């Protein structure tokens, strides 16, 4: 059994293992960094620490939309090496998922592969952090 944070991007549910997540922040001013990829929105001042922020919608190819009241930044930590903020539309829940909850099927979206988990009748696209943080979709 592992804990997953379930959040919304457009009208779909996504999940990320909570072990990856350091904090959930409200939207704050983001400073653009020149010469970076389109989905890199810039950096934020996270209590004295500079943290890059990427728009998860853009990164995995969900159509763009204005940020709203419920928009949050998930600050994830990559193996203690660096932190990155992921902009998502809305945090929904934290759930326990066990192996049985995961479907055999996977789903491709713009070359990102998601595992699918079923929970209380809802389908959750489970994100592999490595895929999201490192170049994959763009390489082609």
């Amino acid at each position, binding site marked *: 059994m592992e804990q997953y944070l379930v959040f919304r991007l457009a009208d779909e549910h996504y999940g990320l293992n909570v072990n990856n997540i350091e904090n959930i922040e409200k939207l704050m001013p983001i*400073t653009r960094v020149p*010469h970076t990829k389109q989905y890199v929105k810039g950096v934020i001042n996270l209590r*004295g620490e*500079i943290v890059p922020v990427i728009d998860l919608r853009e990164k995995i190819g969900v159509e763009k939309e204005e940020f709203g009241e419920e928009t949050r930044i998930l600050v994830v930590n990559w193996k203690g090496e*660096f932190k*990155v903020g992921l902009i998502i539309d809305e945090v929904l829940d934290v759930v326990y998922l066990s192996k049985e909850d995961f479907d055999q099927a996977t789903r491709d979206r713009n070359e990102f592969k998601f595992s699918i988990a079923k929970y209380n009748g809802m389908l959750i696209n489970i994100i592999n952090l490595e895929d999201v943080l490192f170049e994959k979709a763009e390489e082609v």
Partner: protein
Amino acid sequence: MDMSQYLGMFIEEARDHIQSLNDNMLKLEENPEDLQIVNEIFRSAHTLKGMAGTMGFVNMQKLTHAMENVLAAARDGKLKVNPNIMDILFKTVDALESYLDVIIATGTEGQEANLHLVNALNAILGKPAEDVAVSSATKAGKKYEYDEFVVRAIERAWDQGFNVYRFDVELDQNCLLKSARAYLVFRAVEELGEIIHSKPSVQDIEDEKFDFEFSITVISKQPIEKIRDRILSISEIREVKALEIKSGEVSMAEEKEEIEEVQQETQVQETVKVVRQQKQESLQKTSKTVRVDIERLDVLMNLVSELIIIKSRIEGLAKKYNDRQYEESIEYLERITTSLHDAVMKVRMVPVERVFSRFPRMMRDLARELGKEFELVMSGEDTEVDRTIVDELGDPLIHLLRNAADHGIEDPDERVKNGKPRSGLIKLSAYHDGNNVVIEVEDDGKGIDLEKVKQKAIEKGLLKEDQIELTEQEIIDFLFMPSFSTKDKVTNLSGRGVGLDVVKTKIEQLGGMVEVKTQKGKGTKFVIRLPLTLAIIQALLVTVHDEIYAIPVASIREIVDVAKEDIKVVQKGKEIIMLRNQVIPIKHLHSIVGLEPVLDKKKFTVVIVRRGEKLTGIIVDKLLGQQDIVIKSLGKYLEGIRLISGATILGDGSVAMILDPNMLTV
């Protein structure tokens, strides 16, 4: 006993000793007769042996032991040092260094026994090659470490025909008055001999600061059994382990005292006296210093940075209130933060000697490898730079020195033919220049063949044959392009796939720059200019549209307002201005950072930045003013954006990008 807690200390000290071995052996190579140097080497080897033994690094200990024997023979005049012996000794030091590397990486010394070296060292003394694994392993456990006084007392005792014993006394677990019991032991033993050392100390024993065990070292003419029985006759003693300490089994706990001892020996000679005084000074200095983990300093530095950020924030708020008392307090705060900042910076400063010290050895090996003759002269080793910079300096300097030796200095015969001294000269110097530190690598070799560089550039397709109008500087710039080498024959040294481009990248990462001055037939000089520190700088804040950028003040030459009609367009749409008869190319910061430039203005604010001799004008929308900023890295995820050298947090909590001036002028 768990020794791991001492590992850090061991590594630091072993590193120092290995360095001093290298240094002194180089000196010895030049003055093979100088017994003073042999003595120094011997002491380092001896201490290293003791340290390795204490830590349980048996192989390392064995090797140093063999080395020490050779050195002892040289010291006692039984052996004359020759180049062959020097080579073996140098190899030994290399082997010790690789032990240290393994220890740093794994915490253990690894499996390598370096038997060939041990045998080679033994062979110098005429000892047969043996499987050394047996001999000194047992000795390791027998080492007794004492401080200088005790060691001397022990040595004196032996000279006078006394025996030296050590008793490990264990009290009964039910013993109630431990210190009283120990006192009885002391008194009983003192009837038969003299106690010269106890562990823990007598004071601690009196204060009952020990468990149930203590050990005493005794000199006596009595047989060991007699004393042992006498101790056992006291009640509530559980066990007594009696050991006789034989000559050769004692070593000093610390090197410091050893130096003093030798200093006293040399006191007679007038000439040596100066050396001795200097040493004592440095000794006193070291005893007043503390080794601090660099991470702790980083934490301190970060806190100071935060303080400076919050200070600017409060300053900003204070302007609203316009209250005298408020202002005064803030001025006071300002003074304190500035002093604190300076103080912390100073703590982080280390002499460049840290890096320089390994070069004499490297250059010696290099001269042999290349079959060339040259001398390395270093100056300004005590020039201090922030630790973060010093750590990064090694690689670029190694490359430049190799470059000087390999590409610069000619073969001895060729030099003679050209009327130069047979032996070349490579100078490595460091000095402070304002807020910069300058490091120069200079050789008196053949200089850079600019024509050849140009040919090579044409060959590589970097330059069209008709483009001949190049300045010297522009040609030299080719040398810093990736994988550009003018050497036809790729040697072991230059063929490592690192070019001057690596040097340039590294130095620029550190916020510095490299310049080359060369004269055909006379030599080449590389000048590296670096900021003293990386963490906090003065910057000019400017805006383009609604974005704020910081430009390091150190690289700004001046700021000018330029009327629109004074901006001229020259070849291929490049914009320039004339400033005091100098042509300066102009760029819009907007375009540089990927925004639309504002063109319909009557007047433009131009920040003139310099990089070496090169000037470039940067058009910005507005100047916000100058302030201390704390440089923060953009982190690993965003690394490699060449235009931006970092980010900073402004007083209002927002983030601004710091422009890398080196990239602005490209």
